[in-house]
């Protein structure tokens, strides 16, 4: 069953151009089938592993020798995030992508992206993780360049250079690790490393991994590509990039490698805390001066992912739960905001906030959903962002990190200020003239936005059962550290 997470999107990616040759329009059906079936699978996967983990050995070769796929609490959480946003983005794309040529290529790349993301999440083999990471990266480079305008191409090239540099560093690190422990199975590496003393080689690998994955997450010293690449992509793809891709091939892979394979120590956690603090403050300060709607959101992605990394770096159970819950929430509201920005772009053909205005009357549903998302990201109760930020702040004070806690509070306030700016300029301000012709976005785009807005409210109202049933098992996987190996190899 586990292999279906990769087989379905990969198969669809292959079939989409074939069926669209036979009869145009069928590629849309196939893409929707891909999204919905993956969402259903990822929801049902919570009932499969029941607190433990299930392991699928590819080709029947057992764990240390063959490639295995592993589903545990953390993977299940990430699968849910990936496929929930993926499914919504596909539904949104059905209307949105009409303004581009060659939609069948868009759907092909999108399915390929989903295959890569799901593969990264369930892979139990380090090199296999790298291969899926590259599939994801190549699909996202191509999707950023999809508009093929001069700005898109420039952004895509910047992303491509830095992304491939990151991949090279990760591959080098995998090579060094293989040279020192002679295995590529993640559990087996963890077992060999925990049996021996921490050596300089391991520390060097860790540094390379932090550089490589840090580039993919866009933590602040490595963030230069993100504010160009995320706005340049088509809106549903921006939602995927900000909501899912940086988290899966960046944050998830970093957490998995650092916590479950190499094992944490105080120095690494300190690095995470400081990278997180720098990212969240620098991101939000750069964001507040932006006038391009999507660019502003992209800077906020840096800031919010800073929260996640900061909370993970605290290393306490509450910090991990807060960080993972924020990761989940951020994927909901940031994707929703990018979809809103796409709807505004679709209807008004501009994303400059100072040229927009008065859209709350012309586009009531877009305005309402963007209000929900803005309040969520700013951390206003009862929306979902509030609870995760509260957990992170409590965890920071509990762990004795007073500076971090205060930075979290202040960044939250600045976030609120910058989203008040968005709401004021784009939606509530009264202006004459230019927006007279504006119509509300097409119906499928509205359905996708209302769906995500509903989830933002639900995740806020039902945050306690959500944390208990979905987030806690994921945090428990990280807490058990390198004992992760025993669960896989012992089975």
């Amino acid at each position, binding site marked *: 069953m586990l292999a279906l997470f990769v087989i379905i999107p990969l198969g669809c990616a292959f079939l989409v151009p074939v069926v669209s040759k036979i009869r145009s329009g069928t590629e849309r059906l196939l893409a929707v089938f891909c999204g919905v079936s993956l969402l259903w699978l990822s929801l049902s996967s919570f009932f499969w592993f029941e607190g433990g983990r299930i392991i699928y050995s590819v080709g029947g070769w057992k764990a240390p020798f063959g490639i295995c796929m592993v589903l545990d609490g953390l993977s299940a959480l990430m699968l849910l995030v990936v496929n929930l946003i993926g499914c919504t983005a596909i539904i949104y794309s059905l209307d949105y992508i009409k303004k581009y040529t060659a939609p069948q290529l868009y759907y092909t790349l999108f399915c390929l992206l989903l295959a890569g993301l799901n593969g990264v999440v369930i892979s139990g083999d380090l090199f296999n993780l790298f291969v899926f990471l*590259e599939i994801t990266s190549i699909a996202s*480079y191509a999707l950023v*360049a999809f508009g093929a305008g001069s700005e898109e191409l*420039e952004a*895509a090239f910047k992303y491509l*250079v830095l992304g491939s540099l990151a991949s090279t560093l990760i591959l080098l690190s995998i*090579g060094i690790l*293989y040279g020192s422990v002679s295995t590529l199975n993640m559990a087996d590496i963890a077992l060999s490393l925990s049996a021996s003393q921490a050596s300089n080689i391991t520390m060097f690998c860790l540094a390379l991994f932090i550089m490589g994955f840090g580039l993919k997450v866009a933590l602040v010293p490595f963030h230069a590509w993100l504010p160009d690449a995320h706005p*340049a992509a088509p809106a549903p793809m921006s939602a995927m990039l900000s909501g899912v891709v940086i988290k899966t091939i960046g944050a998830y892979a970093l957490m998995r490698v650092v916590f479950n394979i190499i094992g944490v120590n105080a120095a690494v956690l300190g690095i995470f805390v400081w990278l997180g603090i720098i990212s969240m403050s620098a991101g939000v300060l750069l964001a507040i001066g932006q006038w391009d709607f999507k660019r502003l959101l992209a800077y906020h992605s840096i800031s919010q992912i800073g929260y996640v990394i900061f909370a993970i770096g605290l290393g306490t159970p509450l910090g991990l739960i807060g960080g993972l819950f924020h990761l989940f929430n951020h994927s909901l509201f940031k994707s929703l905001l990018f979809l809103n920005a796409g709807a505004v772009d679709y209807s008004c053909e501009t994303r400059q906030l100072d040229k927009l205005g008065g859209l709350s009357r012309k586009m009531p549903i877009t305005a309402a959903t963007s209000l929900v998302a803005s309040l969520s990201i700013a951390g206003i109760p009862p929306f979902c962002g509030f609870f995760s930020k509260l957990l992170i702040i409590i965890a920071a004070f509990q762990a004795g990190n007073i500076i971090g806690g205060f930075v979290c509070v202040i960044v939250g306030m600045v976030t609120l200020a910058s989203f008040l700016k968005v709401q004021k300029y784009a939606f509530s301000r009264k202006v004459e003239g230019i927006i007279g012709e504006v119509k509300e976005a097409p119906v499928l785009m509205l359905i996708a936005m209302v769906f995500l807005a509903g989830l933002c409210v639900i995740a806020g109202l039902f945050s306690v059962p959500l944390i208990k049933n979905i987030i806690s098992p994921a945090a428990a996987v990280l807490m058990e550290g390198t004992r992760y190996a025993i669960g896989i190899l012992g089975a």
Partner: protein
Amino acid sequence: MSLYLLCLILFLIGIYCLLVKKNLVKKIIGFGIAEYAVNLFFILLGYRAGGEAPILDKHEALTNIVDPLPQALILTSIVIGLGVTALMVAIVLRIYDKYRTFDINEIKKLKG
């Protein structure tokens, strides 16, 4: 050991070229060099002086064999590198169509 050192130098040359050169085509070449250095590193990991191919034979025990796994990995990595390079070249060609230049200093519509 000196082989590994040379391999590292090759890798650093590639990274330098990728990050410092202003010409887009030279950046692609730099990426190619860095990629090959990593591939070479993998191959060196599996190399044994005077080693044999690791084919099990019933009659004689193999004592000194070359590790085949890095070679299998490198095949995958080369294919991935091909894909990335092809995408880079395609994007650079389209950039040239739009801007009529390969110089990165003149390609800056995005900033801030």
